[in-house]
């Protein structure tokens, strides 16, 4: 067996150039309902081009440079255009039941492309390095942690997300889109539904594959022709009116049209870019909140201290689906000793040049656990009545041990910006993992600002954008579940939403294989609008006396 010959013959049979780049298509294709695929493709091309420019110049450029911000705006509006047209492509192909006559895998690849597109966009929003990215990271982490994915896919690790966004996921997306296009061109677009359901079934059996059903279909048609090849478009379209078509020209026009649209939108409306929050800002603007968060970490009563996997062995945020907890099964992969990371370690570094702090730290660390807990309880309680004087947090007199001194120095580290830097240390030279500072800010600072901007989960925040910009409207169904019981009342809400969406997504992908349900487009009847001219012509032909000439059109 000569593999080269075999592949060459298979390519020649299945992918003749006249079908891959035809200059004639069935007349029914000339409907606006067929344009959304090429618009989606054009948006993807422009997304990739604008993304390459952004990646080449880096975050500082797109935040600070006017040209960089304009390219960032182009990328933002390209993403909106991509999902806008992709959604319409999905709707129209559903209404046409485009998976018929052997095209089920084309639908499957298209649906997987849709999911991959969402993943690519999601990592893009995480790579913005602005407030929106911070908030999406800390909010999304709970959802991913709930099903164990967060143990390996850390939304707060900018380097990991950036790598996924600019290489891994776009590569996957381009491969999927290429495969989808190839599938469409090999088999061609699907024919309109036959007038009678019985005829439609016969055609389905004839073109879907081999076997007894196909043989029965050929017998029904009294066809002496050999079994049809899936790529035999000439035979598939036989009997249909064909018209000249310029696929490449249409693609170029769509590309130019989308380019003009996004340039206008980017120029006129710009794009959202709220600056990121820093621990320094938080400490300066809300010293009491900063110290309260730090005390929650030191005493082990804060949300992160009690969170559970992947950060520690707590149980506060552990979710499960029935008896199964994927979160616990994934384990502690990003270990964070909250008291040490946020309080003791930064203070011990500062204590190297500060004897007063060194003494305070020694007093605390050498005290018994019971004594430490008593001081922590008393000081945390006193913070409710704390005031700020000359940049210092002042609490009513009480027995707090050395905690006031420790917290005063920690506040100094916070307001000076030193704590931001200390928490970014990961042992290497290059630092791009924001897990520790973002977890600290996720206790209070980020949710407070997000609530003001209607970005909380209970506020449909996952589909909202900062400012008056359109957000991720395609996430509406995912967001929807968080608004209704039992999802919004269960402590396992994230895991339940994931399971629900996983099932619904799987159903979308395999929809063509669902018996009876896959006939829904036929009964919806939207196809009669899309193909009304085709049906009109077929009806006219049936009314015409045999032997007479067709009317000139």
């Amino acid at each position, binding site marked *: 067996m000569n593999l080269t010959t075999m592949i060459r013959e298979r390519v020649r049979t299945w992918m003749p150039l006249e079908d891959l780049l035809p200059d004639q298509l069935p007349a029914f294709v000339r409907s606006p*309902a067929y344009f959304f695929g090429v618009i989606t493709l054009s948006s993807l091309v422009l997304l990739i081009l604008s993304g390459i420019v952004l990646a080449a110049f880096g975050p500082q450029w797109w935040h600070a440079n006017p040209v960089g911000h304009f390219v960032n705006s182009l990328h933002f509006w390209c993403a909106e255009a991509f999902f806008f047209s992709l959604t319409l492509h999905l709707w129209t192909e559903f209404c046409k039941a485009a998976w018929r006559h052997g095209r089920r895998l084309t639908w499957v690849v298209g649906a997987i492309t849709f999911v991959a597109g969402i993943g690519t966009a999601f990592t893009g929003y995480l790579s913005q390095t602005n407030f929106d990215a911070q908030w999406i990271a800390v909010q999304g982490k709970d959802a991913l942690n709930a099903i164990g994915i967060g143990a390996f896919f850390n939304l707060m690790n900018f380097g990991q997300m950036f790598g996924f966004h600019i290489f891994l996921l776009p590569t996957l997306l381009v491969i999927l889109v290429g495969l989808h296009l190839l599938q469409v061109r090999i088999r061609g677009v699907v024919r309109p539904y036959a007038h009678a359901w019985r005829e439609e079934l016969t055609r389905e059996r004839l073109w879907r594959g081999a076997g007894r059903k196909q043989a029965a279909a050929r017998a029904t048609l009294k066809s002496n022709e050999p079994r049809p090849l899936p790529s035999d478009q000439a*035979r598939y379209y036989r*009997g249909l*009116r064909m018209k000249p078509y310029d696929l490449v020209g249409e693609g170029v026009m769509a590309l130019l049209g989308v380019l003009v649209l996004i340039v206008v939108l980017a120029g006129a*409306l710009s794009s959202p870019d709220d600056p990121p929050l820093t621990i320094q800002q938080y400490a300066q603007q809300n010293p009491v909140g900063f110290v309260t968060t730090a005390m929650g970490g030191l005493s082990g009563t804060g949300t992160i201290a009690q969170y559970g996997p992947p950060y520690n062995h707590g149980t506060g945020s552990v979710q499960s689906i029935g008896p199964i907890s994927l979160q616990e099964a994934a384990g502690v992969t990003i270990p964070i000793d909250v008291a040490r990371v946020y309080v003791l370690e930064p203070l011990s570094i500062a204590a190297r040049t500060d004897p007063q702090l060194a003494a305070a730290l020694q007093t605390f660390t050498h005290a018994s656990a019971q004594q430490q807990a008593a001081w922590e309880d008393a000081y945390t309680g006193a913070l409710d009545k704390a005031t700020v004087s000359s940049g210092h947090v002042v609490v009513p007199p009480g027995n707090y041990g050395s905690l006031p001194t420790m917290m005063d120095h920690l506040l100094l580290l916070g307001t000076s910006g030193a704590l931001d830097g200390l928490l970014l240390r990961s042992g290497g030279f290059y630092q791009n993992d924001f897990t520790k500072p973002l977890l600290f800010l996720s206790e209070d600072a980020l949710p407070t600002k997000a609530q003001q901007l209607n970005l909380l989960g209970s506020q449909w925040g996952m589909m909202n954008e900062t400012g*008056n910009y*359109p957000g991720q409207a395609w996430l509406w169904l995912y967001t929807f579940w968080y608004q209704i019981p039992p999802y919004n009342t269960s402590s396992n809400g994230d895991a339940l939403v994931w399971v629900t969406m996983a099932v619904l997504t799987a159903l979308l992908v395999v929809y063509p294989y669902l018996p009876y349900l896959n006939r829904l487009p036929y009964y919806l009847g939207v196809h009669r609008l899309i193909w009304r001219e085709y049906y009109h012509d077929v009806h006219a032909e*049936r009314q015409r006396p045999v032997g007479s000439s067709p009317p000139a*059109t």
Partner: protein
Amino acid sequence: MAGPAQYLHLGFILISLANLMVIALLIVVFVLAVTLRRPAKQRLSPIEAAPESGEAANDGNRSATGKGDRS
């Protein structure tokens, strides 16, 4: 655009005006796409003169034909 966002609160639905406009635009474009007619009927292409046979006849489309059969 960067100012405070406008929101509509309808029962448990809280939606930004921008998102609502996008969704409304999606629906409008979809309706237009399936209902709009193409500008004008074009002339039949020459290949339609070829005789038809086989399974296509089941559509009852007696005048329409296809390209040469490769099988």
